[in-house]
């Protein structure tokens, strides 16, 4: 089970890296963005935390599907919907995140995307979640449906402390990290928001920053006393948006250096930049 945890977490990191590479238009820069997340995940910890790792993977997959649909245009949107449905099938508690993604994207593109399409996609996701909850997950009997809302709330409020703090081999360093609490980043936030504002016309801005905002708000709002250094999903929710905005800023500061790194902008960027 520990091996499965590590494998799923590694998959999640790979998906985050792919998303960061899409946003930065370069695999190496994408790796730089996710590097702190890799350094913070307890790879050698002997503790099975498959649900936590799966939560991270589903969260990463939803982000990637969102970015993919955004970058590749309307033809690939169906594939993105199917990927989101697959995520919900595996983890019905995570329904709120893809639902929010579909709703935000539908609202953003209300001129080109019919409202019925967005509503159908939301209904499909809800149906898949219900199917998964009632049929595929036998431990959740239909009688427990009344408690599904609680599961939904806390399925979308990602807490990684259980994974990090549990077990006898939990290093002191993980326990000590609670010293800094959940809000260690607050002095940096205004400047990072300014970075984000400057990159608001990038094609990845809406998916990445909306996804980060949803995960951050739900975690900070619903989880009792989350600990930032021990919460990989919260870390990812801040790291990727800020990291992509940082790369965009560095590209404008050092264009000659970054010319060797990045490809020219794709069609998705050009359409978004209007």
């Amino acid at each position, binding site marked *: 089970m520990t091996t499965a945890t590590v494998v799923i977490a590694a998959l999640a990191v790979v998906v985050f890296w792919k998303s960061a590479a899409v946003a930065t238009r370069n695999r190496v820069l994408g790796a*730089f*963005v996710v590097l*702190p997340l890799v*350094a*913070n995940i307890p790879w050698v910890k002997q503790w099975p935390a498959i649900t936590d790792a799966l939560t991270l993977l589903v969260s990463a997959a939803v982000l990637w599907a969102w970015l993919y649909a955004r970058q590749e245009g309307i033809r690939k949107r169906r594939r993105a919907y199917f990927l989101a449905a697959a995520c919900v099938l595996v983890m019905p508690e995570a329904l709120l995140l893809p639902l929010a993604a579909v709703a935000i994207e539908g609202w953003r593109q209300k001129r080109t995307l019919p409202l019925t399409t967005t509503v159908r996609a939301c209904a499909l996701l809800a149906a898949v979640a219900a199917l998964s909850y009632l049929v595929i997950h036998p431990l959740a009997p239909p009688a427990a449906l009344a408690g599904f809302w609680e599961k939904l709330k806390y399925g979308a409020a990602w807490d990684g402390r259980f994974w990090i703090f549990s077990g006898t081999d939990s*290093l*002191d*360093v993980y326990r*000590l*990290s609670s*010293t*800094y*609490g959940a809000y*260690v*980043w*607050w*002095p*940096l936030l*205004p*400047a*990072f*928001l*300014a*970075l984000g*504002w*400057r990159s608001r016309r990038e094609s990845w801005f809406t998916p990445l920053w909306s996804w980060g905002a949803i995960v951050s708000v739900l975690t900070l709002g619903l989880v009792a006393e989350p600990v*930032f*250094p021990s919460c990989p999903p919260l*870390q990812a929710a*801040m*790291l990727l948006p*800020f*990291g992509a*905005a*940082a*790369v965009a*800023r*560095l590209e404008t*500061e050092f264009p000659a250096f970054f010319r060797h790194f990045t490809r020219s902008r794709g069609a998705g960027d050009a359409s978004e930049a209007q």
Partner: protein
Amino acid sequence: MQLVRLLERILTGAARPFSPLSRSVLVVAILTFLAGATFFKSAIAAPVNIDEMSWVDRSLKPLWGPPYDDLDFFYAVHHPSLSRIVYRTVLHAQGVYEVERPLVDYHKAPQWNFDRGAFPPYGVETALRYVNVAFLCGMAAFVYLGLRRILGNRALALAGCLPIFFNVPINNGACGYLGTDSMLLFWLAAFWYAWLLARGRGFFATLGLAVVGGLLVSTKVNGAFALVAAAAYFAASSRGYKRVVLPATLLVVPAAIFYALDPIYHGGGAGRVIGVMHETVRIMLALKAQTLSREWAQYARLDLLKESFPYWFFWLPALAVIVSARREKWFWPTAAWAGANVVLNWVLIYVPFLRYAAPMSMSFLVLFGATGLRLVADTYREATGADAGGSGAGGGRP
């Protein structure tokens, strides 16, 4: 909406609703309130630390006499003398010349020591913690003055000070702990401000900076990191003979002050100095080996970074914010000062005590505050087309 517009105009420097004197009084009142809500509260609320009795004892030992035993010698070389001098002065002013309490036995558990009364009396401990509060207030004042100089805006400078007041290592680590750390933070901030003033102003300004640097290294040897950075900066940025003279001043004058303030080095010429330094290094290495032999002190270098400098996680966005100000004249003094403090302290420490993390946090937050608030103000101006009236962020004196 009127209030929002007024706040906006104050933040962009376009409106000045108070006279200069009123603004200064308001700033002092806000800084004092913040210090009361954070530093003062921490100083009162912090639990008794096992090291505090040692600091009371070493402060009351005669500083200028010869070391009579190994403990006297250890006290003299474990840390430079300035904090002992300050604590001793305060205790003598209170009429405290001796404390009849047992010393801490570090081989025993903390509770065992507390049970036998190995902690300072309440009045003594509180008085020395108030000394820490005073030095931390001074630190905040220098940070404010430096940011005010850089950003050219009192409101933004105050905003830049906020993270310093609410920083966990400074509040929970340095403030409520008797030792050198609060004074180190004060002198580090003073050194940064003096560096901003001395930049490009010739020999005598650099001499003043060197004097502050001397007091800095006489508080804690970690202060030498900022001195080395300053020497490298002046070597790189000066022209002609100053390329040698200014860095040499920054190395020789602090060394002379360090020597003058620490009598353990006196009375034996160069041989005595080298012998004491050799013995100091031996004692510090033995202390390190003794600490690292304990189970709780096993930390990899990356773990030390995670524990002592939590902002490392945002290295890429922080880098993007910081380098965006690289063309400002104040940038390199601030960046060199902060970079040396963060990197070299991280390399030096081997256990992540919060008080060891305080200089790293403070240095980073000052650099990030200066660059980040400038970016925020510039972004706001670009987004709204607001006119700073020549006195907004970035309009400060370099």
